[in-house]
């Protein structure tokens, strides 16, 4: 598997296995995820790409029957070691979900939630600045600056998803995980969010799970193809889509199954 190593490695995963009860969902996978770039996970439904994503910030911990083995190193620290508090980890590794899930609070409070619980702001002015910066980075500031006290649930689907991204950014994470962030959005909203993700990829380590090969092609620098719990192929996006090595990848990318 050939790699371009222009960006530093953020996540180094070796021999990762995940079980849900008796189901072996992820089978002994190795992958290195690079900083300051977008990495896309693609594959047919139920291939384990979302499960793998949720390992990266230990969201799987919230599911009782889920068991994870192997080594996952974030900047060289094992995130499953006893010293790592998942709460601290999740502050460093932010996440955006498939369905926009703004809290039933005002737009301002949604974005300010993370900074508040983590104590990122010393005073109200700090907090205002973080909210404005985050909403700006999510490209939402101009749309909502006059109604920050309005409930976040009142926004349109695309705006809600960008609000969730702003919420994640406001916590000042190092990594952003996105679990099919556009699958619940209409094409126009999708385009806006895609642009946003592309921009975020220049500053963060972004990992995105997507169903859409076009999307992966448009916004990611590297792409990993999962099938039945196995990481089949991982390479630059260009390589995966132009010269796939594995015949399963060939089949999927050319649209023969999936």
């Amino acid at each position, binding site marked *: 598997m050939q790699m371009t190593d222009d960006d530093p490695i953020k996540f180094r995963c070796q021999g990762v296995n995940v079980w849900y009860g008796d189901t072996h969902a992820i089978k002994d996978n190795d992958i290195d995820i690079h900083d300051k770039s977008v990495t896309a996970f693609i594959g047919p439904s139920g291939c384990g790409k979302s499960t793998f994503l949720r390992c990266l910030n230990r969201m799987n911990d919230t599911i009782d029957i889920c068991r994870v083995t192997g080594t996952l190193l974030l900047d060289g620290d094992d995130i499953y070691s006893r010293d790592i508090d998942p709460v601290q980890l999740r502050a460093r590794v*932010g996440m*955006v*979900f498939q369905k926009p899930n703004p*809290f039933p609070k005002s737009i301002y409070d949604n974005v300010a939630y993370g900074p508040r619980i983590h104590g990122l702001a010393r005073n109200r002015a700090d907090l205002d600045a973080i909210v404005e910066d985050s909403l700006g980075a999510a490209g939402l500031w101009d749309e909502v600056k006059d109604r920050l006290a309005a409930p976040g649930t009142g926004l349109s689907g695309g705006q809600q998803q960008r609000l969730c991204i702003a919420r994640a950014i406001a916590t000042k994470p190092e990594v952003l995980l996105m679990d099919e962030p556009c699958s619940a959005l209409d094409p126009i909203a999708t385009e806006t969010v895609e642009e946003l993700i592309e921009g975020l990829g220049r500053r963060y380590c972004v990992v995105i799970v997507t169903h859409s090969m076009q999307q992966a092609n448009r916004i990611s620098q590297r792409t990993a193809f999962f099938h039945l719990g196995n990481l089949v192929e991982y390479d630059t996006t260009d390589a995966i889509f132009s010269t796939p090595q594995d015949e399963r990848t060939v089949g999927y990318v050319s649209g023969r199954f999936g």
Partner: protein
Amino acid sequence: MLTWAALAILLLTVAGFLLARNRAVALAGDTPSLLHSRPVYHGGYVALWTAIAGFGLLLLGLIVTNILIGMALYGGLPAGLSEIERDLIVSDGVALSRGTLASRTDEARQAVAALYGRLTTLQIGGLALASVGVAVFTLMRGLGRVAIPFRARTRFERVVQTLLMISAGIAVLTTIGIVASLLGQTLVFFSEIPVLNFLFGTHWSPLSGVHEGAMDPQKVGAIPLFAGTLLITVIAMVVAVPVGLFSAIYLSDFASARARSIIKPMLEILAGIPTVVYGFFAAITVAPFLRDTGAAMGLSVSSESALAAGVVMGIMIIPFISSLSDDVINAVPQSLRDGSYGLGATKAETIRNVILPAALPGIMSAVLLGVSRAIGETMIVVMAAGQGANLTANPLEAVTTVTVQIVALITGDTEASTAAGPAFALGFTLFCITLIFNIWALRLVRKYREVYD
């Protein structure tokens, strides 16, 4: 006699079914498909109408004739008697005729007894004959209609649907019955006693001196009752809300599946225990315990303290609050929890900042329903709270409640018609207060459902 009539109608119903079915079978001969409806429906149609006609007349007749007999009994009384005396003579006369205990026997009562005896004999005999007759008539008429093109199934189903609708209407009838019966007696009561005296008076002993004549409007002030109810309700909620809410939080977000499988049934057991058992527990165990503990600390705790009743009532309401809160907390979508955890929030932060605000309407409605229960709860306070109307905010003293006074008035020794006035007025007040809480709670829940369903 009436039992026999009922049995006869039942028999006729069965007979009607069999006869009509057989007749339909016979009519169809070898080609059953000729019939519009299958024989069973012909049988069912006749049987249904026979039963409705027979039992309907029996029941309706009983109600109507009972009212008529009552009017006849009162009509035959000598003039110039007070209402209470008339009631007494009639009830004694009926008792004499039935052979049970009467308070006195005199000429007027004997006359009532004789009249009652004659009329009931007539009533029972007449009703039995009439209802069986009508059943037979309906049966014959129904049999006559059995024919090949007769749309028995359609008609049968129409009757069934009407019966279904009437059943659904019984809920409405019950509400109307409650309001009408409570309101009727209450209005009579308020025609003698000013409403304001009842609602804002601070002295409650409605039956003192009532034997000498009318009720004293200065002695029917229900404020001490309302205050006592409020005090006990507040104590109960102080116990039930934190315990119930924290239990629900623990169950929904901290407990393992195994712990849940033990704790939930435990709370359900607590919910299933009859209130009379709680009352016994309060009176026999908790009240003496509090009194002794108080004495050891140099406090004088009444042996029927509001505290004992309130604490036990709180225990009773714990499962109520916890299960309703558990439901609404679980109904908060997992995606909101994920969103919060994904930002690096702890469970406590997620619960306090995301889940509780989202579940607040549901929790509020649980609390309101709990309050409504506490206000209407009877047995615990009857057994563990006091009887004396004592206007105090001290939880260590004995207080009385609305429900205690209703029970005391209705089960007391005073003439039923006298005690009914204040009792029904209290009942009506209770109904109105709990109704407000219930509707408020249902509204909140509906709003909550609209958000998350």
